[in-house]
């Protein structure tokens, strides 16, 4: 079991301290940079010379952009267009981090709670700030929805508040847990394959291949879910309550 978790261990490559802050370059940092570079380079190559009749690469980039743009406009009612760059960045950042972890021997940045938590808290703080900016003290109306009997308020307000505060936690945990579980499953299946007698090795190793294929799909799905929920939170912040 400890072997399976070894894959998630943070390894510091270069110590870096800024006062009390530890800003060391670790495998998380390197693979995040790798993911960012992968995203930027891939997209740059895809649209280096955009043409009216797109080639396969440009078409893929346009499809990806169109997909994120459509989801953003669908989920942030009326004002979705201006959040497209943010949502596209979130999507590609998470997707890049998820996919880079599928390279054999690589590290998955999104399997780190600190990384997913940072993204989730970042979105949560942004949405909360946006809600304050839009509604001022009307922000608190969201915790006491209209039409609810007064007698129910002592029950409703804590539930709503808890639900609100749980958003970043669930957002972070969902991505973290999915990535961790997926990679653990791959590791366990791989270890089983290696440990099995030679005539049975094809079974767990075959499942490993299937699991990797599933992880590819999960990488997209998790990025998609994160974006959709971010849109929902922003839309909720913009909406009147």
């Amino acid at each position, binding site marked *: 079991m400890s072997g399976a*978790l070894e894959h998630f261990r943070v390894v510091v490559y270069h110590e870096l301290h800024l006062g009390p802050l*530890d800003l*060391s370059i670790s495998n*998380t*940092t390197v693979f*995040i940079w790798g993911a960012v570079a992968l*995203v930027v380079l891939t997209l740059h190559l895809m*649209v280096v010379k955009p043409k009216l009749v797109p080639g396969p690469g440009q078409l893929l980039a346009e499809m990806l*952009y169109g997909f994120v743009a459509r989801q953003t406009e669908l989920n942030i009612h009326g004002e979705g267009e201006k959040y*497209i760059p943010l949502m596209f960045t979130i999507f590609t950042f998470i997707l890049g981090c998820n996919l880079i972890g599928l390279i054999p021997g690589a590290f998955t940045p999104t399997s780190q709670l600190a990384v997913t938590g940072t993204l989730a808290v970042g979105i949560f703080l942004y949405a909360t700030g946006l809600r304050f900016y839009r509604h001022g003290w009307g922000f608190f109306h969201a915790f006491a929805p209209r039409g609810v009997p007064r007698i129910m308020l002592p029950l409703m307000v804590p539930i709503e508040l808890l639900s609100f505060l749980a958003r970043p936690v669930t957002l972070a945990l969902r991505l973290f847990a999915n990535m961790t579980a997926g990679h653990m499953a791959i590791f366990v299946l791989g270890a089983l394959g290696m440990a099995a007698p030679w005539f049975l090795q094809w079974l767990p190793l075959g499942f490993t291949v299937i699991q990797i294929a599933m992880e590819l799909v999960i990488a997209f799905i998790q990025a998609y879910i994160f974006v959709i929920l971010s849109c929902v939170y922003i839309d909720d912040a913009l909406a009147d309550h």
Partner: protein
Amino acid sequence: MPQFDTTFFSSQIFWTIISFIVLFVVLGRWILPRIAAILQERTQLIEEEIAQTRKKQQEIDEIKLDYADKLSNLDDEAKKMFDASEKRIIERREQLMGEWKAEMERKKRDFHEETEIARQMAIRDIRNQSADLIVEAAEKVLHRHIDDHQAQQALEEAIADMEKDSSKKI
């Protein structure tokens, strides 16, 4: 689990934020505008094509309507043309008939005139020959010479008598 070890949280959080911002800036400044621009250009082109197609379709519809209208008027026009043609034919026929009749009348008149002239000439010849015969006959009967004047007078009287007789018979 190693992920819950808070030792590296600060560096992970810091580099996540920095990397995210870098990606956001790079995408927002260089990549996304290119994609958005080409999509916009394509959308615009497609919209222009659609607008042109709609315009052409409208023109086609107008031509079709015009054609259908002309087609419906074609029967009337054909009938008018047929009537006009028929009228022209009738007029021409009447004109030709008129001309032919006039020609016939003229020929008839000429024929009558020629006939009359021939008749007059024949009568004159007959008279002359008859006068000669009568003179010869009278000279043989009377055994004396009759001059032309007397012979002519006698002939005139004879003819006058004949005409009287023939008119009495009629």
